[in-house]
């Protein structure tokens, strides 16, 4: 009987739901309400191209996920993501689906990876 339970446990272990890349941030303060997919912000993609200080010092993004109220209107005005996502440095704000790419209903926050479940409390 114990063996049977151990087997059930072993079968369940490799399963999981979200295996995001380490440091992926989901922005969903407004997206679901507005009927678009939530945004996935991949830190790994951006830090190959920019150092942390560019966004977190020059552009004014607060370090803690959830403390920035990022609005599309600001991005179109060249603030936050719009400082680069302006069709010059990176793709422009009309390419909605490249950023709004998460499964609908994904809760906002910073995600771990397939080995580290993520921050203790955020």
């Amino acid at each position, binding site marked *: 009987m114990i063996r*049977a339970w*151990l*087997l059930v446990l*072993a*079968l369940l*272990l*490799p399963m*999981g*739901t*979200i*295996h*995001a*890349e*380490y*440091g992926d941030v*989901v922005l969903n303060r407004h997206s679901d309400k507005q009927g678009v*997919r939530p945004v*996935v912000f*991949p*830190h*790994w*993609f951006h*830090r*190959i*191209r*920019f*150092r*942390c*200080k*560019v966004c*977190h*010092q*020059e*552009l004014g993004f607060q*370090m*803690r996920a959830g403390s920035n109220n990022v609005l599309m209107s600001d991005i179109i005005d060249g603030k936050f993501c719009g*400082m*680069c996502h302006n069709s010059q440095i990176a793709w422009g704000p009309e*390419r*909605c*689906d*490249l*950023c*709004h*790419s*998460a*499964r*609908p209903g994904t809760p906002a926050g*910073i*995600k*771990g*990876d*397939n*080995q*580290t479940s*993520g*921050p*203790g*409390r*955020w």
Partner: protein
Amino acid sequence: MAERLRTWWRRHARWLWPGAVVLWAAAGALAAGPSLWLPLEKDGLHDPAGPGIALLQQPAEALASLPRDSAGNKVRWVQALESGAINPRTNLFPETKVRVLDQDIIISRFGSMPAVKFPHRQHTLWLDCSNCHNGLFKDKIGANRFSMLAILNGEQCGVCHGAVAFPLTECNRCHSVPNASLQRKATP
């Protein structure tokens, strides 16, 4: 024939369950082994039905050639920077002063763990002074009280370590200085 099978079964049946568990674990390890980075459409986060997903860069494509790590993004980010494997921009505005400080701080001496060496250089290659000072930490040696509990809760070092910088499973990368190598001062 049937009798032979029954004998074989009686002899080997007890290995069936452990054998099955070992086989399953091996299959799991094989399946997890080669895919250090999951394709975006399989990460459970991206919508595989999203029209943009085919255009986005895959983690494996971007990260496979960088110095390998065992945790986080599986990339030694500081090493990637120092070796020139990546050369991320330091500033967007020409007038921004890019500040790098080469100074090590030894903290948490003579505790139950080896002491912590905090290297300013590696941190300021990525970050600006104002990202930590004077909000997260005071810019005065000895003025900050560190707590592993707070760090594990996403405060202090845990704002980045455990979220985007190497995770808190890598104890010895910070707790790297043997207390025996430190000199005890006469007055603490």
